[in-house]
């Protein structure tokens, strides 16, 4: 990967350097804000007390309890499966939809655009209950299928809007040039447009994955027994009183992913060797 001009250039105008420096500091502060509660929950996952109230002593027992809690781990697996499939479908529908709405002048483009935004505004309970009625009517047994259908419905608009922002002001000549050079529209889309949209597709996909992973109300109404998700399990446990086992679960999950993200380059090189 080629270095960006900022990193390469030895001397920057003072104003720009100052701006970059303060932007970096600002970003660091925002990351501190984002990770502060995470640090707290990891801290309490080592607490002997059952309650996240006072520090009583160090223990690994919640991690041991976690390893034995099959329903919780099963729910985590279900959540990951559902979030992954919902994200793939959302990215597919959202990206293609955004591109088509950009490229063609559809008759009902504005109505479609508005419809896309409705799942974002619709209160979760309204969507959950109306989908429950819909699924009952169509005799779909509640389970993985129904919950994924529901999740895609509220996730894909986020991808679509993110990709649209990126498409905005995209040089129209880009696709035309590719077509002039003899590429089929599909090839032009995949080889020319797609790479250009990738950053927005990634951020849209990340949002979809996160939303799906954390959705509770819509899931409750559209989910069956076999596909119980993690939020359902957590809200259930909350009735009995939350305990640090859930912190331990979050801690394991977060620390693994963060470590993976940070060391991914190293891991990649290791794998390439």
């Amino acid at each position, binding site marked *: 990967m080629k270095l960006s001009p900022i990193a390469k250039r030895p001397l920057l105008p003072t104003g720009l350097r100052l701006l970059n420096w303060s932007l970096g500091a600002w970003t660091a502060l925002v990351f501190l804000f984002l990770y502060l509660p995470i640090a707290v929950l990891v801290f309490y996952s080592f607490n002997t007390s059952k309650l996240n109230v006072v520090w009583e002593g160090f223990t690994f027992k919640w991690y041991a309890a976690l390893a034995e809690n099959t329903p919780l781990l099963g729910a985590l697996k279900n959540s990951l499966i559902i979030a992954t499939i919902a994200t793939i479908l959302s990215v597919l529908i959202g990206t293609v939809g955004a591109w088509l709405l950009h490229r063609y002048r559809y008759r009902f483009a504005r109505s479609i655009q508005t419809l896309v935004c409705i799942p974002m505004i619709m209160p979760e309970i309204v969507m959950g209950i109306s989908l429950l009625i819909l699924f*009952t009517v169509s*005799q779909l047994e509640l389970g993985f299928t129904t919950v994924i259908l529901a999740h895609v419905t509220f996730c894909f608009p986020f991808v679509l809007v993110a990709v649209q922002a990126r498409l905005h002001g995209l040089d129209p000549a880009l696709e035309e040039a590719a077509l002039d050079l003899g590429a089929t529209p599909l090839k032009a889309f995949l080889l020319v447009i797609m790479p250009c949209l990738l950053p927005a597709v990634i951020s849209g996909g990340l949002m979809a994955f996160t939303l799906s992973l954390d959705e509770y109300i819509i899931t409750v109404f559209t989910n069956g027994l076999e596909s119980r998700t993690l939020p359902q399990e957590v809200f259930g*446990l909350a009735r009995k009183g939350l305990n640090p086992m859930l912190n331990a679960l979050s801690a394991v999950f977060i620390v693994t992913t963060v470590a993976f993200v940070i060391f991914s380059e190293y891991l990649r090189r290791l794998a390439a060797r």
Partner: protein
Amino acid sequence: MKLIRKFLTLGLVALTATGAFAANKKGELKLFGWSEYVPQAVLDGFTAETGIKVSYETYASGEEMLAKLLSGGTRYDLIQPPDYVAEALIKDGLLTPIDQSKLKNFGNLMPEFLKMPHDPEQKFTVPYMVGTVGIVVNTEKITEPVLGYRDLFSAKHKNRIVALDDGRELAVAALYVLGKDMNDFSPANLAAVRPILAEWFPRIKLFDSDSPKTALLNGDVDLGLVWGGEAAKLWQENKKFQYVLPSEGAHLFIDLLAIPKRARNVENAHLFIDYILRPEVSKLISDEFPYTNPNAAARKLLSPDQLANPGSYPTTTRKLDTFRHIGDVGSAIDELITDLKNTK
């Protein structure tokens, strides 16, 4: 457009009529209960003994249960409705009668929890666990006695109170203060309740029905109107949290076991109910959930500490009242609470 209309008509039909799904295998029990309310050990024990597989689907609120039950999708064999919901289900003919001759442990239940207003003939329900709503006080911070709702919501305790985020419970407290029937939500009574709640609301620091003990443990508040079970857990944590039933009167709630009309495995449901009624099984539930156990034989197995917990077994001389089905008044109470929260 036509398609949509067709779809909609279908929807109306499905909500009122009953759908049919593939038949369940024998040896199965579809239990639809409060999340975490039935301990895993109980489920495992039942399966080990009878070979009947229990699928335990859960809900976090009585209304969630009602919505899923009424939508008619899954056919549940056993549900856990609260008393006033069961009353409505009985009235609408949505429950299957329970055959007491099949429950040889039925006699373990204390008579005071039987033939109650929600099921006067004791035909459709069996008590599972019982609880109260009362006042919990952090006695390290609050030294003077707090005996009733008036003491709890007094101006002295401004910003030190947590209350259940439940319009009906709050309205009931106000009705008790007025000395009225706690199930009488006539317009006149609702109007009388309003100024009392309007006075109380600004003094309440937070409303929380799910985990009111959190704010008490954190020291953010010193008093609360909470579920007895929550108070019991606080007492287990620290004896400084004392629980009293308000002198003006208190709400007693009963969570029941009942068999829906459309159940497929009625026989298995009976087996499960009978299993739950065994003293040693019922004790397991008390160990996990420190609510009031209606099973006399099971109470004998509890530790002195469990029995001394005021949150689980409060002492009272006054008769406790249960909620009755109040039809659509719930909507009026909800509007009152929304309005009061608005003007704050």
